């Protein structure tokens, strides 16, 4: 954004540059609201396109697209942990990187707090699903690149789905697939899978990650202001939607499996 740190390891631009602004936005800073939902019903989520096995260099991978949100995920490992003390269980390492062009304003290509907070949320969502006790001393690296994002909540949800799919694609032992769905409290309504603008207009948002096969929840992440009952109905709605997403993901994985089986024959 404002100040570009000179970094001899990259091609550098001018010392300082700023995002451009529209004349119209200064006089009328409130953004129009009619773009919300785009004809979606409150309980509708954006269409999911999921493709396991995009990155053939990795042990497992997945690419997910939910309308404008586009995320690629690769799994490396389990491989020997380096420079860490002995641990009976394996380690799960999640690294998230936002491409510089993934947001409305350009992100400097340095690691920032948002990368880490999304990585933290994904780690929490996935941790309980992976059978870490089955590979002591080893690390599973989950690398995620966000190509485009439309809302942090949707990014965490889509990232969780992609990462869990990629884990399954890599043949790593998990208790179940982790699905994730976000919800926003819009007045008294619950809007699932809110876009960036919708979350900003809402009172609060919630991301729920669960393993539909076991009907257990691995992570809840709520921000903003909600009545306890509202939070609960967000959770229920998200969990119900996760069951549907689970079907899609399972299908995508099976399809991919049968494809590779045919190749082997």
């Amino acid at each position: 954004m404002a100040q570009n740190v000179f970094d001899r390891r990259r091609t550098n631009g001018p010392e300082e540059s700023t995002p451009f602004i529209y004349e119209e936005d200064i006089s009328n800073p409130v953004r129009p609201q009619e773009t919300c939902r785009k004809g979606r019903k409150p309980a509708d989520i954006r269409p999911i396109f999921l493709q396991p096995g995009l990155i053939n260099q990795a042990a497992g991978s997945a690419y997910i697209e939910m309308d404008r949100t586009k995320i690629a995920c690769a799994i490396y490992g389990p491989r020997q942990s380096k420079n860490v003390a002995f641990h009976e269980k394996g380690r799960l390492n999640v690294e998230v990187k936002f491409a510089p062009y993934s947001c409305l304003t350009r992100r400097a290509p340095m690691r920032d707090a948002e990368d880490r907070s999304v990585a933290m949320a994904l780690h929490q969502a996935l941790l309980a699903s992976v059978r870490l006790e089955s590979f002591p001393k080893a690390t599973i690296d989950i690398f995620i690149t966000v190509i485009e994002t439309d809302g942090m909540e949707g990014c965490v949800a889509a990232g969780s789905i992609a990462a869990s799919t990629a884990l399954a694609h890599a043949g790593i032992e998990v208790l179940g697939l982790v699905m994730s769905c976000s919800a926003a409290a819009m007045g008294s309504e619950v809007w699932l899978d809110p876009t960036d603008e919708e979350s900003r207009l809402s009172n609060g948002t919630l991301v729920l990650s669960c393993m539909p096969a076991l009907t257990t929840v691995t992570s809840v992440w709520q921000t903003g202001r909600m009545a306890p009952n509202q939070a609960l109905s967000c959770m229920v709605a998200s969990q119900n939607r996760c069951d549907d997403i689970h079907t899609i993901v399972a299908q995508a994985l099976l399809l991919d499996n049968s494809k590779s089986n045919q190749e082997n024959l």
Partner: protein
Amino acid sequence: MASTTSLSKAEKSYIQAGLLANPPTRGDGRSAQDFRTISLQTSVAPLANGSARVSIGRDPHDGSGGTEVLAATKLEVESVDLGSGSGGVNGGRVMCSVTCSPAAYPHLSSAALDDLQYDLTTILNSTLTHPSLHPKNLTILPGKKSWLLNLDLVVLVDSGNVFDALFLAARAALWDTKVPRTRSVEYKARKAGGGGEGGEKGDMEVDEEVVSGFDTRQIRHATDFELPDYWDEGEELDGRDRWPVCVTLNLVPPAHFLDATLEEEAAIPLRLLLMFSFDSDEPHIQGMRTMGNGELTVPQLGELLKEGEKYARQIWQSLNAKLKEEELGRIKERNKF
């Protein structure tokens, strides 16, 4: 978050078995819902706009042990960003940052300490800087100048339950915060005389004559502000009763307990953080997140929400009582002189 204390399997199972016993017993004799002694002091940093120091479970005799957290707010004047790159926003901003004293985590490497600070900062930021809590009196000049409210927290000692301590300190410091009163000033004088704006140099000179000493940056607007009051007596933050308290439920399914010590935290894989506000008739959740390895079900979460609300309300009430007492004490103090 990596636990810093290593425990043997026998110690872990001793702690877990105690918590699952009926009635649950804990290493220090507390029941599952007991907190350690909490002490709180506000206005501890004279140069900050608001501050508080919280300790949980300090030894009453020699003051050793216990989780200790310091919070302070500092207000800064910011230009509203119109492509200038300063990042200021119309209506003001709130920013939290958590620093951990290396002395609080002697086992952690500096990289791990950085990560911990990042994570704690993220959790506080995502709750406290949410628009639903935004104070309305951070505007100085609409569209031009606003306050940046920096909330800095320092973890001095961590003996467990650092989240509850952080949020207690944050709420107390924000409660304690005084926003300096400002008065906007308008300059029309030389505009007419300048004849067709008269070039910028003339205007800037005008500014230099009258600008308050508080802000040394150039202000090229026709309007400015000054601080009429002595800095100590500002107004309270708008909606200061909304700032939430946090209650951490440590889960040993089916049981849960509050205010874990470091050893207990190391023995328990899963925690649920709940942030509540009771400023209106209806209670509100201001944040919720699970931390650690473990699973729950939605009905379980519903139960925990109910329980958590009960605990949070108790914390809320005793904190409010303490804050009012502190405030009264200070008013008396001031009246003495």
